[in-house]
């Protein structure tokens, strides 16, 4: 006899909300806009994810954490996580909750606009000042830049804008 277990998409999404970025404990993979699709067949779950950056070394860790978290959902027997490049991940996929989470961690959310020469502006995540300078467009991870706030004298990071216009 074959017995199917009903796994609800809502339960899967709630579980995914608990998978944090390995380096930023205040945002989840859902907040970052990395989840592209969830498919459920009986007790089998397949999740499609989008890498933020192609060379990001955290992808395998994230994948492992997603598998572990989904396996703990009642009724789930098998989990598959696939990374896809289409649609490409863009920084506007970060949700409002994600933007708040980044700020709470001291990382400015990605700017919504940038000019043709690639320049862009963010405010200081600590004091909100606009009086900031860009130290390095490249940062400690592929997705971040290093900035400095001239008002509160704090160095801080920002998520790099990544868009279809590039």
């Amino acid at each position, binding site marked *: 006899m074959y017995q199917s277990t009903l796994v609800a998409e809502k339960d899967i999404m709630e579980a995914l909300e608990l998978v944090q970025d390995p380096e930023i404990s205040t945002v989840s993979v859902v907040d970052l806009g990395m989840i592209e699709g969830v498919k459920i067949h009986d007790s089998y779950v397949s999740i499609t994810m989008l890498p933020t950056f*192609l060379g990001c070394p955290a992808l395998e860790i994230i994948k492992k954490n997603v598998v572990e978290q989904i396996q703990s959902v009642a009724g789930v027997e098998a989990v598959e996580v696939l990374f896809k490049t289409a649609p490409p991940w863009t920084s506007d996929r970060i949700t409002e909750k994600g933007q708040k989470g980044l700020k709470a961690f001291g990382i400015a959310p990605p700017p919504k606009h940038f000019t043709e020469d690639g320049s862009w502006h963010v405010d200081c995540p600590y004091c909100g000042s606009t009086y900031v300078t860009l130290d390095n467009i*490249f940062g400690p991870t592929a997705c971040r830049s290093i900035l400095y706030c001239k008002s509160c004298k704090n160095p801080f990071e920002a998520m790099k804008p990544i868009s279809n216009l590039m």
Partner: protein
Amino acid sequence: MSTNAVEMTPAHKEALAELLFQLADDDFLLSYRGSEWLGLAPHIEEDVASSSISQDTMGHAKMYYGLLEELGYGKIDDLAHGRSAKERKNSILVERENGAGYYMETPRYDWAYAVVRNYFYTLAKKVKVDSLKKTTYQPLAEVATKVSMELFYHHIHWRTWFTQLLSSSDEAKERMNKAIEGVMADFGDVFSYGNASQSFKEFALIEDATVLKQRWEAALEEVVKALHIESPIIQQPDRNGRLGEHTEELDRALSTLSEVYRLNPAVPW
């Protein structure tokens, strides 16, 4: 019209694999050379920036090797580490050593050479990737779209170094001009497709190399004009990496980079 791997004829698949090997090996070798600069760049912010670019570039190589894995050409790690110099399809430019000395001992690497090589290569990569967005092989078009977003920042970075050093002191200009000469001496095969030009065209994988070369020259001309230096012209290659013709510098690179892999190729890492 887009195609998928299942419907492909053997000739079509072979042409696609040839292109993927050229793209993958180029990015793989250049990112390896970039990694040798780690801890040696002129200042700490540049160390962060150039190593981040190398990491992105290694990620791009991984995507191309991944497409080859999907086509049945072997596993990503084996393709990256297990192939001999003769099997490599990268251009001569990316296999060249960073300068005199060995990075574990007393490296005397040349930053001017690093800047010119990275800028000219990145511009060539941009021209190719823009063309690949329209390739008939959809999975490659998707990878190209994503790569070009990351490349946007690499391009700005190297162009900034290039224009700043060439607008700087006499010594900087002299060293940069020498570096341009050195880079251009190896640039002949960057836009070469080896023996595959005809098949790339037949299956509409990428535009003609002559067209891409012109785009590269035109884009660079705008930049160098403002710096009052002559436009670099791409010469015919003496040696063509796309045909598996390489230098001893590639042998040395492969022997170093595959050292751990060769200890036990079955171990995933």
